[in-house]
C-alpha cells in the first residue's frame, strides 16, 4: 500500500543536494592505470613533435618564399621602370623658344598694318618663326 503522506524531504532540493554529495563521495578514485598514462603521453609527445615540425614546415619556407618574392618585385620594378626618353619618341628642343625675343605687341601689329599689309605679314612671319621650332630634316635634306 502506498504512503499517502509525501515525505517533506522529498520536496526539499537540499535532500537532492545531499544525495548528490553522497553519490560523489561514493565515486572516489579509480586505481592508477599506468598503461593509460603511457598511451596518453605517447599521443601527446607525438602531437607535440608533429606540432614543432609543422611549425618548421610552415614558417621557415614561408619566410624564404616571402623574401624571394620581395627581391623579385624589387628587381622587376627596376627593370620595368618607365624611361624618360622612350625609344621612338621625337625629342623636341625647346631651348630656342625660351631664348626667343619677346613677341611683337598688338600695338606693333596695328602700326605695321597702318603702314601696309605686307608689313603686317612680315611681322607675323617673324614672330611665327621665333615661336615655332625648326622642322627636323632628314640627312638628305628632305622633310
Amino acid at each position: 500500500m502506498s504512503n499517502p503522506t509525501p515525505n517533506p524531504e522529498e520536496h526539499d532540493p537540499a535532500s537532492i543536494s545531499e544525495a548528490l554529495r553522497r553519490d560523489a563521495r561514493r565515486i572516489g578514485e579509480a586505481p592508477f592505470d599506468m598503461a593509460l598514462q603511457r598511451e596518453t603521453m605517447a599521443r601527446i609527445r607525438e602531437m607535440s613533435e608533429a606540432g614543432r615540425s609543422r611549425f618548421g614546415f610552415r614558417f621557415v619556407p614561408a619566410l624564404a618564399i616571402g623574401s624571394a618574392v620581395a627581391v623579385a618585385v624589387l628587381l622587376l620594378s627596376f627593370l620595368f621602370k618607365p624611361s624618360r626618353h622612350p625609344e621612338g619618341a621625337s625629342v623636341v628642343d625647346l631651348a630656342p623658344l625660351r631664348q626667343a625675343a619677346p613677341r611683337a605687341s598688338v600695338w606693333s601689329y596695328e602700326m605695321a598694318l597702318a603702314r601696309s599689309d605686307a608689313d603686317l605679314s612680315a611681322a607675323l612671319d617673324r614672330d611665327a618663326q621665333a615661336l615655332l621650332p625648326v622642322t627636323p630634316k632628314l640627312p638628305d635634306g628632305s622633310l
Partner: protein
Amino acid sequence: MAAPQTEEESELVALSREGDVAAFSRLMQEHQSRLVAQALAFCGDPHQARDLAQETMVAAWKSLARFDGSCRFFTWLYAILLRQHRKTLGWFARRIPLATLEQQATAQRHEDAAACEPRAGDDEEAALLRAMVTALPAKHREVIRLRFYADANEAEIAAALGISAGTVKSRLHHALEKLRQMKEKVNRLRDSRH
C-alpha cells in the same frame, strides 16, 4: 572533497603551458585516477571511461594555453571531461524522456535479479540519481556535476564554463528543482506499481 591547488601543481601547470611534456605527464598522474572514476560514473563502461579520460587529457594538452588559473586545474579538467562526454553522447546528449528513467531502473533491477546479485538499496538509488542527472539538459547537467562531483564553487564553475556566476546560480537552482520534480515523478510511478 577536492584539494586546493598546491604550489607544486601551479608550477607544473606553468611548465606544461610552456610545452614541457614531462611536467604535463606528472600533472596527469596526479589527476588520472579521479578523472577515470568520474568518467566511469558518467558512462558506466570501464573501456569507454578509459577512452573518455584519455581524450580529456589530450584535449587538455591542446587547450592548455587557455587555462588562466581562475579555477582549480581539476575543475578545468573536469569541464573538459564534460564536453568530451557530451561529444561522445552526440545525439543522445539531448534530454532523455523522463519515462525512460524508471524503465532504466526497472531494467537494471531485472539484470541484477538475473545475475543473482541484488543491488543494495543505496546502489539502486545512486543509479537512479545518476540517470536523473543524465536526463537533465546539458547546461544543467554540467553545473550539477561540477558543483557536486568536482566540488567546485560557483565562481569556479563560472570560470570553467565561461559564464557568469549569476548564470551558474540560476542553472543550479533550476537543475536542482528539475531533479526534485523527477524524483517525485519516479516515486509516484513506483507507488502506482506497488
